[in-house]
């Protein structure tokens, strides 16, 4: 099957090989900086001038399909053309990565509305995600498809049954592939779902703890997650865990607002539970770069301990 949507079939219109390569590169680089309009201009007739299934064609077709899907404003014609191209890449592309990415894009197109009035098809999306899980089993793309598949049970038709299905999918996947590159995303996703959708704080904290050990997906959000975990620990009566988390906040995220809140809470806990010998770490003075005891009282308390 060759592309026909651009109508550029006349061989005389075809462009030279060097120019093609340059345009493919320019088009992809334009996407790399969110300039989908430029990408569309650079790539729009390129796939037609290449042999389908070749490496350069795969790159050009994936780039063009992306530009058609994400250029604004979204139109029915562009989305349809994008779908055709992604399908073609998934079927004929010579690069397995591009094929998997194209399938993920196709599934996502079915799942969400790209323009007003577009009909979505979540069952079709789920089928595609399941297909990717099977075809790319053990690879990152299968992890991603699992994450997406589970999310369809959180975002559509809210019910405890659906939430349980989504969490089960994620839990089974992570136990089968604990060393997955996306493991941290999966653990955070489980944590969010347990916390927000099922109100199972113990399970949420356990999932967040797994994510913490792997290093949270967005390092700049570490303070927020450690604090959230500390609150889950307190509400579930896991005092030792809460203390550990407060101490981590002070040491590991020294610039965060939560440092002061953690220090204060540790002070309260230390006063309420002298038998626990609670250590309150020194805080960092961000101006001088030196550590300092939290307060005079604490200094005395620490020295007594």
């Amino acid at each position, binding site marked *: 099957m060759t592309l026909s949507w651009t109508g550029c079939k006349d061989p005389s219109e075809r462009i030279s090989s060097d120019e093609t390569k340059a345009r493919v590169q320019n088009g*992809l*680089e334009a*996407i*790399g*900086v*969110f*300039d*989908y309009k430029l990408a569309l201009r650079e790539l729009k007739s390129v796939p037609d001038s290449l042999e389908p299934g070749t490496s350069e064609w795969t*790159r050009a077709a*994936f*780039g063009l399909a*992306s530009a058609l*899907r*994400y250029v604004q404003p979204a139109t029915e014609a562009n989305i349809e053309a994008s779908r055709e191209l992604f399908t073609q890449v998934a079927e004929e592309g010579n*690069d397995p*990565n*591009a094929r998997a*990415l194209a399938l993920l*894009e196709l599934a*996502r197109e079915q799942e*969400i509305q*790209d323009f007003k009035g577009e009909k979505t098809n979540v069952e079709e999306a789920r089928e595609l995600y399941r297909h990717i899980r099977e075809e790319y089993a053990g690879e990152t793309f299968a992890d*991603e498809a699992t*994450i*997406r598949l589970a*999310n369809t049970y*959180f*975002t559509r038709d*809210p019910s405890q049954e659906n939430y349980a299905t989504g969490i089960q999918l994620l839990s089974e996947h992570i136990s089968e592939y604990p060393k997955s*590159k*996306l493991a*941290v*995303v999966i653990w*955070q*996703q489980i944590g*969010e779902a347990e916390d*927000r*959708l099922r109100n199972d704080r113990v399970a949420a904290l356990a999932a967040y703890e797994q994510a913490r050990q792997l290093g949270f*997906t*967005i390092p*700049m959000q570490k303070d*927020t997650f450690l*604090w*959230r975990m500390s*609150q*889950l620990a307190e509400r579930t009566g896991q005092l030792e865990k809460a203390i550990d988390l407060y101490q981590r906040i002070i040491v590991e995220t020294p*610039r*965060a*607002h*939560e*440092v*002061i*809140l953690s220090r204060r809470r540790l002070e309260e806990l230390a006063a309420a539970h002298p038998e626990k010998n609670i250590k309150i770490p020194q*805080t960092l003075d*961000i*101006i*001088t*770069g*030196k550590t300092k005891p939290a307060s005079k009282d604490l200094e005395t308390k620490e020295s007594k301990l």
Partner: protein
Amino acid sequence: MRFNLSWLAALLLAGSFIYSAIQVFRVSRMPGAGYKDNVIRVIHWQLEPGYREGLQWAIDEYNNLPHVKEAGIRVEQQGVTQKVYGQFMNIHMIGGTGPDIAQNGTTRLIRGNAIARFYAPLSDYVTEPNPYNSPEFLPEGLDPELAEMLATSAWSETLIDGMKGGYEEKLNDFYSIPVSTPGDVRLFYNMKLASEAKAVALDALAMQPHPEWLRLSLRENGAESGFIPESPKLVEWLNSGSPPETLGQLLLLCEAILQISTQPGREGLVPIAASSFSNNDVGNALYRHIFMLTFGHELDLNDDNKVDSLEIVHNWQQGRWGFESTDAIRKSIELMQLMTRYYPPGFLGLDREQSQRRFVQGNAMIVSTGGWDAKSIFEAVNNLGDEQTFEIAVTREPLGGEGEIYAEYLTDRPSEAEFEAGVPLSLNKQSPHPEEALDFLRFLTSIRVNEELNRRAGWLPVTIGAEAVEELRPFSPEMEGLPPKLEMNLRNQDLLAQIRNTTSGSLKLVLSGGITYEEFIERCQAAFSDPRLGADRQWFEEWQQKNDHTFGHDQSLNVESVRQYLLNDDSAQRRRLSRLYSSITGDQGYWVRELWRQYHPDEPFPSK
């Protein structure tokens, strides 16, 4: 046909336009247009007195480094007024004639995802140590622990804000390097006037019975009126040279200044030099936030130490706060009304310059403003004659003291821990000298250079351990306090305009005496209860906003997919992971709908 002079003007205009267009076209066609082979251009809008001179010192130091001279590279700066900075940058960045290094911000075009189009991501560099903090560049006598930290830590970790001022959350990458920070809002006291007010208060305390103004200011045990209890501690403070340490002390001094202003020749004197510039309004700019922080933690549903617009509305619907039931709201308005007694008559008609001038000329005891005004205020006061000059004390707004008015509310200020440093300088993606430009940014943020640059500029340094000039030290960020976003902020930009405008408009009216507090409550409650544009509509708007973000997240994920898999950019792998995470959390606004379902099980989700 008669010759019309207007035609000549039109012809001249057309001729000038054509000539300019030809010139722009000719220049833009020249190879390397906009770039000189050996010059790194830095463009910024910091035209405050001293900033360009400070930066120029750093530039000269850099240009004189042996390896820079050897490479034949030279750095030059250009200041552009903030009024036209946005247009200037838009034209040059799109035209490919942008500077190598540019201050990031103020343009409507280069923001959000578009930042990635014009500026280089810096994550790969900021995780490496800054070579200009290696031992041979460090000042002598530096604390060994600090020296070790500066020499070995990631560049980002050597800045006091952890380089947060250069981090773009949407893009999950560092896109600029902050080099200076102006400091937040503080109270400037004219200590000569403060001493005079203290003397008046001491005299009044010695009188029996106390004069009426003092009697009204003093708070007896359990009484509702008055600001501050009479105590040996109060007398001790009045006899000291310290600025107010509690709100009660501040209010007492303001009352004393009002007394002084009744003396002949002192009529122009006011306690606080307020103006229409929001930071000059002590009650609104400083104290309102503190009151609204006191109950924020009760409204934070997802433990992120923020109270967002949905949490404001949802908690109002659940009765967790209310205009009538939440005392902190009533009390904050009381204090703001009280404060206006100390402002100049018609203060809303005055501007920032008039407010500063009043303070500098000794006609106000207090002015509230940010560190960006410190240099000009100190210089102006220092230039006054010997008889007119006065000592200035700078402090944060005092909290409530024991037994004082509002003491139970004024216990914690907003923390300044997560402040973001300023003057973020970005690296133009099209710069022909990216390595050299980056080298210059490292140089600017090394401890020795950053300290001296900011000392000359009159700003606060951003490098850990770099010392600020004495006068600016009170502006350094303070860790202590509550997360500022825990504030129940009715000016939150995500609140529906109808709610936001009604509450802020009614607040202005109640403060000016245009309406009563009861009318204020009525208006605000009506805005929240409005079936079409009130609280329920906020749910829909929140959901729609989150749903709209779905597309943006997917687009960002696609960008990183192309970078990682088709352009073989290894650094994209990390970003792709975070994009995927952003895409699934809050995907299609599902959390908003779920929250509605939990609290309104029998009601359909609000629609437009």
